[in-house]
């Protein structure tokens, strides 16, 4: 245990303090917003697809909340470009933990996966697979 934190490693704090791709895209292919009611975290993800309609080209996020949720969103905006929507949909909690590079304690997993969930739901709405207004993270994600 360094300065006393397992979960708040340098990388996470760096992304929290200096979020990458923060803001809105000018003309996203789709946008979606979600919240984690128990924490009050909110995230909006803007996604722009390549011409193939399948490959993610650019991602931006905006929102508010704890370091875990915001850092996770920031990292995701770097990670997603180049992957396809179906690869996005296959991402699970382990992929997020790996991306974050730290063990997330069970009660904070909701924060960590919010951004991914928002992106996935946004993609599904875009594909016409589901119809929801807002995403919220579920316990048993």
């Amino acid at each position, binding site marked *: *245990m360094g*300065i*006393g*934190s*397992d*979960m*708040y490693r340098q990388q996470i*704090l760096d992304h929290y*303090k200096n979020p990458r791709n923060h803001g809105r895209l000018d003309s996203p292919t789709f946008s979606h917003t979600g919240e984690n009611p*128990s*924490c*009050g975290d909110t995230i909006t993800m803007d996604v722009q697809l390549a011409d193939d309609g399948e490959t993610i080209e650019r991602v931006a996020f905006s929102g*508010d*909340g*704890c*370091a*875990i949720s915001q850092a996770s969103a920031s990292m995701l905006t770097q990670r997603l470009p180049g992957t396809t929507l179906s690869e996005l949909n296959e991402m699970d909690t382990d992929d997020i933990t790996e991306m974050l590079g730290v063990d997330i*304690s*069970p009660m*904070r997993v909701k*924060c960590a996966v919010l951004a991914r969930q928002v992106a996935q739901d946004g993609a599904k709405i875009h594909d016409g697979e589901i119809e929801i207004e807002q995403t919220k993270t579920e316990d048993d994600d």
Partner: protein
Amino acid sequence: MEAKESYPVNVGAIRSDFPILERNVGGDTSTPGEHDDDTTPLVYLDNAATSHTPKQVVDSIVEYYHGYNSNVHRGIHHLSQEASIAYEDAHDRVAEFIGASGGREEVAFTKNTTEAMNTVAYAWGLNELSPDDSVVLTEMEHHASLVTWQQIAKKVGAEVRYIRIDEDGRLDMEHAKELIDDSTKMVSVVHISNTLGTINPVSDLADMAHDVGAYIFVDGAQSAPTRPVDVETIDADFFAFSGHKMCGPTGIGALYGKRDILDEMQPYHYGGSMIRRVTFDDATWEDLPWKFEAGTPPIAQGIGFAAAIDYLDDIGMENVQAHEELLAEYAYDRLSEFDDIEIYGPPGDDRGGLVSFNLDGVHAHDLSSILNEQGVAIRAGDHCTQPLHDKLGAAASTRASFYIYNTKDEVDALVEGLDIARELFA
């Protein structure tokens, strides 16, 4: 952690009654009960959420299950007699603890404070409230009271009014006077705010309610555990509290009601033990308090509740209160040293044993996680007072809350933990 100083209660002796305080934390949490990988000593400051349970209370539960477990009421056999006597006596014990001179007839056991509130809202409110009536709450009500009356009022078309809080988190009593009027049928107020620590003038509010012919329901979830309470001095019509916040088991709480009121109130849950005669067409009801306890009640928990009250009374509720006040003031003072901390609620010398605050630039959930990594258990969130948090302009806050086994050293551990958060988030 040994108590090196002198406190209003014998902290050292008390701590030895709570085996959980000896444990370490910090390891893998996915296998509850296995602590081998836990290495950080526990500093438990989440007592407003739930208190710990001393050996004496746990032993009373074990003694029940292994000694005289049985269903109660009406059972003629030996075990049922023993269980019935213990369970029924527990009602008297609870009544005595809060100064209810009517004894068991004025105390129905519920699952928790929340169920007590819902019982009155459904059994009285749904039947007695009408569209011209108002229910007066405060802006600092816990969801147990706020959401319950809000939703019951919606069902019957009654109005809900909220008494404002001032800058210090105290009730604006002038506003209370305006709101409580002839339309008012119920005033439901929290005795001690679980977020602000404010101690409300419930006796004055009772007078105001009674002046207009309304009832007053006092939410005692945070007061009954922490100081002497006398429902008759308050002149509360209803009073509710939970066992798990006062050294008792989970799954048990109490609804106090003045006998005449309970007598006239319709029953709520239907089933065994609450009936007198049943035909295929209709039913009549048992005497108080059983009319309000349908089905097999939480027997072991009621008995454990009484054991918790015995435990607290041995310490003395005046001493519990003094200890709470001492730690609240100490925590308030220590946290006030820092400019980057915002504390909610009244000053340190006039509050219940809890302090809610925020540290600039660190989300409450992050702060709680970081403190947790130091072994310090505090609560972060809205503490079931979302509208109050909206009003305070904070999505969440961090709350440290104290009980009889806490020490100033533990407050210091909290304050030191903040430094680590500051460094990380600098």
